[in-house]
């Protein structure tokens, strides 16, 4: 019971880390981005390549995954995403499905479609016993890392000038523009940051979520769900949604394996019926 809860929280915090960028895209620019999982996959592959081909240690590969994915995100935002902010949702869906297909095909071409292995450093492997239950050290590390990141991000949004600009832009982009906030620039930075976080999540998640070329489609629903249920443009909403979702999914797979992913999809439909505007309510 405690073990399932623990695994669920570790899983949920990963979902949260990856989905946060999507929450910015949807909340700030009202952009339906189905390709968000591709950034997570990119981060995962950066980590794998850095470790296997260049012998970079795991802990050093993580920031690398963050930086490279953030750069990719910034470039794509500049070149492509930006042009579609005012397009209708069908265009955005088609565009991001196209991007997803391309990323999957490219990943299959370069890396094949099998699961990518990752060799964790020794100090992150194994388990500790506590209160009669086993806890994986890596999952403890994961929860700790996400908790630290969330605190930093929370401070960033709540205390810094940039954070205030993000909040103002989410609340009312038009008024924010009127006050002299460069909303486009705020969004570019937020998009790059969100992509980087997704990449970091993808790299951290190789051990938990797995990594193969089908990743963007396999987890697309989870990321979307976190944002839609949690409400876009906040930190607490997606965090709660991701943790609930993670625990539900792990518990479902553990207690009723014959039903499998059914639990999560059923939960999704029920949650959407119960909270059509998200748990905390969406502003748009």
């Amino acid at each position, binding site marked *: 019971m405690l073990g399932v809860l623990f695994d669920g929280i570790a899983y949920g915090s990963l979902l949260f880390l990856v989905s946060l960028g999507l929450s910015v895209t949807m909340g700030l620019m009202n952009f339906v981005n189905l390709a968000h999982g591709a950034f997570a996959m990119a981060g995962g592959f950066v980590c794998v390549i850095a470790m296997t081909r260049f012998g970079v240690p795991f802990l050093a590969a993580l920031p690398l995954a963050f930086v490279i994915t953030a750069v990719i995100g910034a470039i794509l935002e500049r070149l492509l995403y930006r042009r579609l902010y005012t397009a209708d949702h069908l265009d955005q869906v088609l565009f991001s499905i196209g991007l997803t297909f391309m990323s999957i095909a490219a990943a299959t071409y370069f890396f094949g479609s099998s699961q990518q292995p990752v060799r964790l450093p020794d100090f992150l492997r194994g388990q500790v016993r506590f209160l009669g239950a086993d806890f994986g050290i890596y999952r403890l590390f994961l929860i700790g890392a996400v908790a630290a990141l969330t605190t930093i991000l929370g401070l960033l949004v709540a205390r810094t000038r940039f954070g205030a600009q993000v909040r103002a832009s989410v609340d009312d982009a038009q008024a924010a523009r009127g006050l002299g906030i460069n909303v486009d620039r705020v969004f570019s930075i937020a998009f790059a940051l969100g992509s980087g976080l997704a990449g970091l999540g993808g790299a951290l998640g190789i051990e938990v979520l797995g990594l193969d070329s089908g990743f963007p489609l396999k987890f697309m*629903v989870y990321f979307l769900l976190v944002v839609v249920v949690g409400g876009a443009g906040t930190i607490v909403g997606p965090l709660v949604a991701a943790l609930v979702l993670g625990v539900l999914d792990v518990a479902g797979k553990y207690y009723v394996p014959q039903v499998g992913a059914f639990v999560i999809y059923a939960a999704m439909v029920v949650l959407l019926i119960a909270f059509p505007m998200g748990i905390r309510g969406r502003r748009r």
Partner: protein
Amino acid sequence: MTSWRRETIFELAFWLVPVAAFFLLPGYRVLGSQILIVALFALSLDLVLGYAGILTLGHAAFFGLGAYTAGLLAVHGWGEPLTGLVAGAAVAAIMGFAVSFLVVRGENLARLMVTLGVGLLLFEAANRAAFITGGVDGLSGVTMWKLFGVFPFDLSGRTAYVYSFVVLLLVFLFLRRLARSPFGLSLRGIRENRTRMPAIGVPVQRRLVAAFTLGAAIAGIAGALLAQTTQFVGLDTLGFGRSADTMIMLVLGGTGRLYGALVGTAVFMIAQDYLSGINPVYWQFWLGLLLVVFVFVARGGIMGAVERLRR
């Protein structure tokens, strides 16, 4: 020549193409009947997405429901084709009606998620209920009776082709009539401006429920056709990939035009048959690239381009 007569000639010429293909390309009748069936499915999506403007990512749910309904009927001893179609349509319509209430009240994002969720839910249900559906292996052992008690479904795909063609044509004529009716016009009005339509007395919710249910029923017919003509139902009939592909076909041809769905499907499936034979990974890459480029330069699709040329 008046414009409506020109229109009629264009339409007649268009429908002669599949008839000619039947006689001139007998080796392609199996692929041909598949195209006709998927075109029917794309038509149903055009009603929902193109006319009513409901963004859906799970339309294959109804296609698959129709397919499994017809397939299961045949497996369990009722192989009569036409009643199979009706059953497929009915089951899909009931599901569509139930789902429509969740779909119509939300905005785009919520609609997208609900349709996606229902699609995945059904996929997972069919996957897990292997004792009924055959699960990953698919449902085999579908034996059809002769059509009208006369025409057997053979391997060359003759009956399948003609059968699919006639069903497609009938549904198309129905939809063409519907699109020009006050009902069809009100759907377009809702798509263009949802807040204004209630002001001129259109019951928006009810229209959308009707359109979604009808779209589901037609998708069910298409699914049932596929099950009957291929005598097999695979899990992919319910999959996200099918929903996405069909959406691509529709957009490629042009939404809200009916003919767009037909043209887009034919172009897509012929290209797929040719290119994915070379390498499926390349196919997916080029498809993705096509979509991205398409969004930027070619909205309106093939039929949109044709219309611009004719002006």
